[in-house]
């Protein structure tokens, strides 16, 4: 396999790693927004999940318990959001921002109180985080040209949460489009009055959507601190929640297009890490600054020019009043 193709393969490999938290958060955003609740608080839930996962994994020594803790904490955050803007009909954007600020401060404060390391958690040891999972038959396929390399580098060797994230995309699509719950969820984001007149509780439906959103963000947070990284560092979500929200809009509130948008963002980030300092044909060596800015430039261009008409759920952002 040529050197260029191999590097391209590694870039795709990095794409999957970097896109995983975005994919989970985007699915969370789709559930929440399809039910009519704007979810700016993806970022805050992600950060909360990251912190709790690292703290629990360090204390108990089990990354799976960490995921459990992260889901619980993230769902709690989601419920605060729901309490403010579903039950009390507060402004959803304001409530979401409040959650983000709360998460940013709370994680560091609790971190200092628990571990006395300036808001970080201690570095996680090998057994306390998700390691790569080697797939079956890697050795066997190794001898197959091209496909063997692709199998080994691209498909095998990620950690469990990566596969879980990819698996949850078709599951999300199935729930949204093939189940009664999904039908009602979509309806409640478009014409909540119709759902209400059919005798289904709008409030309970929206709460369930937010529970799902919290669950997915919790897994994403656990991925950041216990799979991709090895411990919690303050503000480690670094805007990924917002990028996921952009992917939701980019994907027009549908799971599969949103997945593709997340993969695109992941690819741009992965490519910028890899192309830095490498001389390109025709252009020569690209300056560091340009490579670092590339994902953002592309995002602006794509969002401005190529998205086409995006129709958000009609009732989004509006609290339901009987």
């Amino acid at each position, binding site marked *: 396999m040529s050197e260029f193709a191999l590097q391209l393969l*590694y870039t795709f490999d990095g794409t999957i*790693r970097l896109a995983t938290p975005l994919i989970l958060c985007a699915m969370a955003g789709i559930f929440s927004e399809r039910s009519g609740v704007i979810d700016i608080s993806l970022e805050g839930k992600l950060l909360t999940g990251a912190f709790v996962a690292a703290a629990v994994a360090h204390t108990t020594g089990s990354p799976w318990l960490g995921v459990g803790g992260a889901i619980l904490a993230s769902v709690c955050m989601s419920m605060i959001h729901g309490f403010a803007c579903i039950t009390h009909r507060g402004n959803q954007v304001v409530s979401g921002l409040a959650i983000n600020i709360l998460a940013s401060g709370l994680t560091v404060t609790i971190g200092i109180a628990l571990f006395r390391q300036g808001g*970080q958690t201690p570095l996680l040891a090998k057994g306390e985080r998700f390691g790569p999972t080697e797939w079956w038959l890697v050795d066997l396929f190794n001898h197959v040209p091209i496909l063997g390399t692709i199998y080994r580098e691209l498909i095998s060797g990620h950690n469990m949460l990566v596969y879980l994230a990819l698996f949850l995309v078709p599951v999300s699509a199935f729930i949204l489009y093939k189940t009664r719950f999904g039908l009602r969820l979509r309806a409640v984001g478009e014409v909540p009055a119709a759902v209400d007149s059919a005798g289904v509780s709008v409030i309970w439906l929206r709460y369930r959507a937010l529970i799902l959103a919290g669950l997915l963000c919790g897994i994403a947070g656990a991925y950041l601190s216990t799979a991709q*990284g090895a411990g919690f560092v303050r503000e*480690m979500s*670094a805007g990924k929640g917002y990028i996921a929200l952009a992917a939701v809009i980019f994907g027009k509130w549908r799971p599969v297009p949103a997945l593709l948008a997340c993969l695109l963002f992941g690819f741009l980030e992965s490519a910028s*890490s890899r192309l*830095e300092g490498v001389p390109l044909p025709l252009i020569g060596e690209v300056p560091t600054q340009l490579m*670092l800015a590339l994902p953002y430039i592309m995002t602006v261009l794509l969002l401005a020019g190529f998205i086409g008409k995006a129709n958000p759920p009609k009732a989004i952002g509006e609290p339901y009043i009987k």
Partner: protein
Amino acid sequence: MKSLVKFFAAATAMAVATVAQAADFKPAVIYDMGGKFDKSFNEGVYNGIKRFTDETGVEVMEFEVTNETQREQAMQRMVQRGATVVLGVGFAQADAISKVASENPDKLFSIIDVNWLDHPNLRQYAFKEHEGSYLVGIAAAMASKTGTVGFVGGMDIPLIRAFACGYVQGAKSANADVNVIQNMTGTTPSAWNDPAKGGELTRAQIDRGADVVYQAAGGTGVGVISAAADAGKMSIGVDSNQNHMAPGSVLTSMLKRVDVAAYQTMKDAMSGDFETGVRNLGLAEEGVGWALDEHNAALITDEMKAAMDAASAAIVAGEVSVHDYRSDNNCPM
């Protein structure tokens, strides 16, 4: 009798003077972005401060800067709270300390990683990081099986380029054919605190053949060390001794003795013997070096140790001069 009275009087006066001085002495330290426990640069300072507090019992006021606008405010506030000596951590605080030092000529100031200011009440510490990096570059080139080694920097600034340049020179001195891949994490201060990006850059370098990766990136370096350990490759720590972070995978650490600088500052200010001006700490002054402990003893072969010791002696004796990127903003390699 008379002499005895005199003696007691003098002794009492001295005791009073010491007490008064101790009561007046109020030290403060401003940690920079990355935070007190970045396992690297700021933590080195913290270790020096802790040693001072343990020895003397004097508490040091502290503040951790979390965004760029806080540096000057924090320094002003420390002075207002009665600090008699303020230690700034890192080049990014240069402008702030310059302003506050000129406004408060009766207070003492000290700053690490700065050598271009000029105030009668300011002590500046500069380190010859390129010399320490040269030594770990030798170790990296000798430990590498692939002939490719990597470097991950934090924010793209001349100081970090100096680390990289010294490292390249050292690696090439041990193996002229070695290939060095260099990456910078970012161009803003957030590049000091992005372990995910650090890990991704490291994986990219490993994919391109690197098997030893040196990082000078503050908190971002945590990601470099864990990514290298995950891949079964080696990394090199920086500033503090980071060998313990992934035992068996961290080849060595380039030590920058900021703890000594912090300790000296506090100790001298307390004793009243505070010389200002610039202090350049290199290999000869033991301001930089490399770490050998139980965590990496198995990784450092006798040949590596001999080569590094020989290079160190040659640099101290002036037979080898390591080019400093900061002198002309250029790396000859």
